[in-house]
C-alpha cells in the first residue's frame, strides 16, 4: 500500500480537486477499486468531486469517535475510486476528533494497517490547508507528500514554511519524499510564466514536470458532481491528470 498525502500551506489552491481527479486518473491507470481517497479536511468536499451524496454514518470522523472500523464508512464512487468522506459533523464532534488525533499520533497509520489493503493499492489523503493535527497524522504515514501550489506570489511565499515542516519530518522519517505540483497554470499570463520559472529554479527536480493547466472545465465539473476526467475527457486538465498519474506510477515503478 502506497500513501500519497495531498497538502498545501494555503487554502484555495485546488488541493481537493487535485486529490479527487488524481485519484480517478490513478484508478484508470491501476484499475478500478485499487485507489482509495480519504478526506481528512473538515470542509468535507472531496466526496462532491467524486459524485457522492452525503449519507449519515459515512464519515471518517464519526467512525473514529465511535471506535468503529472504516469499512462501513467507505463508499464506492461511480468513478472507480473508493471514497471515505470526512462527513457532515457538528462542531463538537470535529473538536473531539481532533483531540483524538492529538492524543494518538499513530491513529491514521493504525487505521490504514487495519483496512487490509494490498501492496499494490494506493491511498490518497486530502488534508486541510496549513499546519494541523490532520497534517501531522498524514506526515506520519505518508510515502509521498504532494504539495499543491499556484503559480502566484502568495503560494510562492508559503514555500519556506512548508520546507521547514518537511525538514522536521525528514528527521523522524528519512524515507519520505515530497514533491510540488503546480496547479492552474496559464502560460499566456506573464506573471504565471515568470513565477513558474522561479519555482523551477528554487525547487529543481522536486517540482513535478507535469503541471495542471487552468481550466474552467474543472470548476464546471464540480457543479455537475463529477471529476473533470469524466466531465470533459478531451480537455487539457484531464490530459494533465492522466499524464501526472502516468508519471507518478512510472516513478513508483522505478
Amino acid at each position: 500500500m502506497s500513501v500519497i498525502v495531498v497538502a498545501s500551506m494555503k487554502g484555495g489552491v485546488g488541493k481537493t480537486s487535485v486529490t479527487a481527479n488524481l485519484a480517478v486518473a490513478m484508478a484508470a491507470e491501476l484499475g478500478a477499486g485499487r485507489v482509495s481517497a480519504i478526506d481528512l479536511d473538515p470542509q468535507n468536499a472531496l466526496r462532491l468531486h467524486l459524485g457522492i451524496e452525503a449519507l449519515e454514518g459515512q464519515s471518517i470522523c464519526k467512525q473514529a469517535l465511535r471506535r468503529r472500523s472504516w469499512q462501513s464508512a467507505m463508499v464506492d464512487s461511480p468513478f472507480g475510486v473508493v471514497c471515505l468522506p470526512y462527513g457532515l459533523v457538528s462542531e463538537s464532534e470535529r473538536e473531539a476528533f481532533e483531540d483524538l488525533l492529538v492524543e494518538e499520533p499513530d491513529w491514521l497509520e493504525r487505521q490504514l494497517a487495519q483496512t487490509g489493503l494490498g501492496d499494490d493499492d494506493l491511498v490518497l489523503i486530502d488534508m486541510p490547508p496549513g499546519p494541523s493535527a490532520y497534517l501531522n497524522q498524514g506526515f506520519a504515514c505518508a510515502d509521498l507528500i504532494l504539495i499543491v501550489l499556484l503559480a502566484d506570489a502568495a503560494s510562492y511565499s508559503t514555500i519556506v514554511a512548508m520546507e521547514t515542516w518537511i525538514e522536521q519530518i525528514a528527521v523522524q522519517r528519512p524515507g519520505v519524499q515530497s514533491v510540488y505540483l503546480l496547479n492552474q497554470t496559464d502560460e499566456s499570463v506573464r506573471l504565471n510564466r515568470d513565477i513558474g520559472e522561479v519555482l523551477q529554479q528554487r525547487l529543481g527536480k522536486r517540482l513535478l514536470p507535469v503541471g495542471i493547466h487552468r481550466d474552467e472545465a474543472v470548476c464546471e465539473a464540480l457543479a455537475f458532481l463529477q471529476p473533470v476526467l469524466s466531465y470533459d475527457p478531451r480537455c487539457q486538465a484531464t490530459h494533465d491528470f492522466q499524464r501526472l498519474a502516468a508519471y507518478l506510477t512510472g516513478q513508483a515503478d522505478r
Partner: protein
Amino acid sequence: MSARSILMRWRKHWSFGARSLLNPRYLYGLVNESGNRLVNWSAWSTPGVAGAFAVVCLVLFGVLITIPFSRDEQLVFSLVIVSVALYMRRYVGTLVTLVLVSLSVLASTRYLYWRCITSLQIEQSVDLLLGLALLAAELYAWIILIVGYFQTAWPLKRKPVPMPQDLSMWPTVDVFIPTYNEPLSVVMPTVIAALAMDWPRDKIKVYLLDDGRRNEFRDFAASLEVNYLTRSNNLHAKAGNINSALPETDGELIAIFDCDHIPTRTFLQATVGLFLQDSALAMVQTPHHFLSPDPFERNLQLFRLMPNEGELFYGLVQDGNDLWNATFFCGSCAVLRRTMLLEVGGVATETVTEDAHTALKLHRLGYSTAYLGVTQAAGLATESLSAHVRQRIRWARGMAQIFRIDNPLLGKGLRWPQRLCYLNAMLHFFYGLPRIIFLTAPLSYLFFEAHIIQASADLIAVYALPHLTHANIANSRMQGKHRHTFWAEVYETALAWYIMVPTTLAMINPKFGQFNVTGKGGQVEQEYFDWKTSMPYIVILVLNIAGLVVGIGRLFWWNSHEFGTVLFNLMWTAYNLTILAATLSVALEARQIRRHWRVQIDLPAMIRLPNGRTVACEVDDFSEGGLAIKLPTEVALEKGSMVRISLFRGEREFAIPAAIVFNQGLVMRARFENMNLDDYRSLVAATFSRADAWQDWLPERDIDRPLQGIREVLGVGIEGLTRLVKRIALSRQWRRLPVWKK
C-alpha cells in the same frame, strides 16, 4: 505417366542427394561459405599476399578490358558478369558494393575501350566530327562515373561528438547571418532561432550582417539585442559581407547561416564537439534542408515523395567526401574556426562559389574538415524554375572558375583523394554540353544518315547494354535512397542548356560572371508556363519528334536495309523524348499562393478557448503564419474567434495567440494574430528550433526502382505535354506567343 512421376524417376536416376551441386540449397550454401572463407582468409594479413592478389586482379582487369571478342563471345561475357552482379546484389555490406562497383567499372571501361578502338573508323569527315563529339561526351560520362564511385563508395557517416561537462572548455561562438535584399519576415525566424540555440549565454554572440543597410533591420536587431553590422559597400557580395565582419568580432568559432536557414537549438552542441576533438579541424558542414519544395517537386507534385537534387549531395556525396577529408563548405549551416579562416584570408572572393573555394584553400593548408549528416537547420528552396536555374548557373560558373584559377589537380597541399573529390565536384557542373549531345546524337542519323558509331546495332547493344546495366545496378545500390535514376536525368536535363554556356565561358575567362542572389519565399500568383526558360528544350523536343517521324519512315521504307541501326536510333530518340517531356512539365509553374510553407509535424498542443475551457489536441502542420490542428472531438467555435494555442516541447509550453480560420469536424486551422516579439520567439522555439524538428522529415520511401521510375517519368512527360499543347491551343493570345511568360 504423370509429370510428377517423371520428375521422381529423373531424380532417382541422377540421385542427387543433399551434397549434390544440382541441389540449389546446397549450392547457395557452398557459395556463401566459400565467399565467407575467402573474406576471412587469414593469409590476407600476411604482407605481400593482398598486394600480389591486387596485382593479379589488375592484370586480369586489364586483360578483360582490352581482349577482343566476337559479338557472340561478348554476349556470353556480358551475360556472365551481369548474372554475377544480379546474384551478388542480394548480399549486404560494403565489400559487395565494392565488387558491384568493380564489375561496373569493368563493363563501362570495356565499352569505352571498344568505342575508341573499333567504332571510330569513320571516313567521312562530318561523321567523324560528330562521332568524336559523342565519344567525348561518353568519355566525360565515364570519368564522372568512375570518380563518382570513388567519391561515394564508402560514406563515413560521422556521429556528433558530445560536449564536455566542464562549460569552461566550451569555445566562444559568433553566429553570422548575412543578408542583402531578403524581406525581414524571412530573416526574423533565423535570427530568433540563432538566439535560441543551446549554448552558454556569455559565449555566444549573434550578428546580423546587413548588406542592404536597412533601418528596419537595424531596429529589429536592436529589439532583440542582436549585434547589427553593415558596411559602406557591397564588394564581393556574401563573401565580402562575412569578411568585413571578421575584424569586428572575436569568437573562436564562427557559425554561418544563410538568412533563411533556421537552425535548431541543438546545432552548436552537435557540431562544436568535433572541434574540441580535432585541433586541426577547420570546418564542420551540416546538410542544407529545405522545408519547401523546389520547382521540380512543386510543379511535378513530388514533394517528399522522391529524393530531390540536394539529397544525393548531402545524403551521400558529402559523407563520401568526408572519408577522404574533403568535405566541402557549402556557405551555410556550417561552423568554421576563426584562426584558420583568417589564415586563408577569410572567405574566398576570387570566384562566385566562395564556399567551395574557401574549403579548397583550407584543405591546401593541410587542415581537415568534417561533415555531420544530421539535419540541424532548414530553409526555403528556390521559388521558381528560373530562380533555380539562375542559382545553378552561378554554382556551375563558380566551379568552372575554381577549375581554371585554382585547379585542384594542380598546386600544393592536397592529397590525391582530395584532388579527385574536388575534380568530381567541378567536372559535375560540365554536364551541360554532353547532355545536349546525348539528346541530339541520334538525330544526326535520323536526319542525315550520319553513322556516328561505326558498328552494327547488335554489336553496340552487346557492349553498351552491360555498361548501362552495371552502372544502374551499382548506382542503385549506393544511391538508391538518395537519388532515383530517371528523375535525376530530368533534374540535370532541365539545367543542361543553361549551365553549358556559363561553364564554357568561365573556362575561357574566369572573370566572366556576376554574383546572383537567389530569390526565395515568393509566390506564384497564377499558373503559367515558363516559355523563356524552356524554349531551348521545346526546340530540341520538336527536333526529336521530327526525328521520330523521319525515323519511322526510314525504318519501313527508306532505310529498311539497316533496320537495326534505325531501330537503335529510334529507341534512343524515344528515351530522349520521355526525358524532355518530363523536363518541360517542370516549366509549367504551378500556382503557389502560400506565403508560408507548412511543415508536417506531430506535436502535442492545447487550445485555450475564449470561455476559459481547453482542448488537448495535436498539431498536424505548422508554418510561420499558422497551424493545423487535429481535434479529439468537435469544438463549437466560430470562424474568427480568438484563442490561445499552446505548443509543447518536452515539458516546456509556448502559448501563442491565434484566430480560427477554419473549423470543420475534427480539423481546425488557426492563423497567428497579434503576435508580439515574445510570442514569435515562443513560436520559433516550439517549432523550427526543436531538436527533433527535421528528424522524421522523410516518409518511408521506396528505394530506387528504375523500371518504375521510367514509367513515372513517362507519365509525367505525357501529362505535361498534353497540358502544354492544350495551353497553346486554348490561349487566346497565342499569336503573341513570343511575348515571354504567359
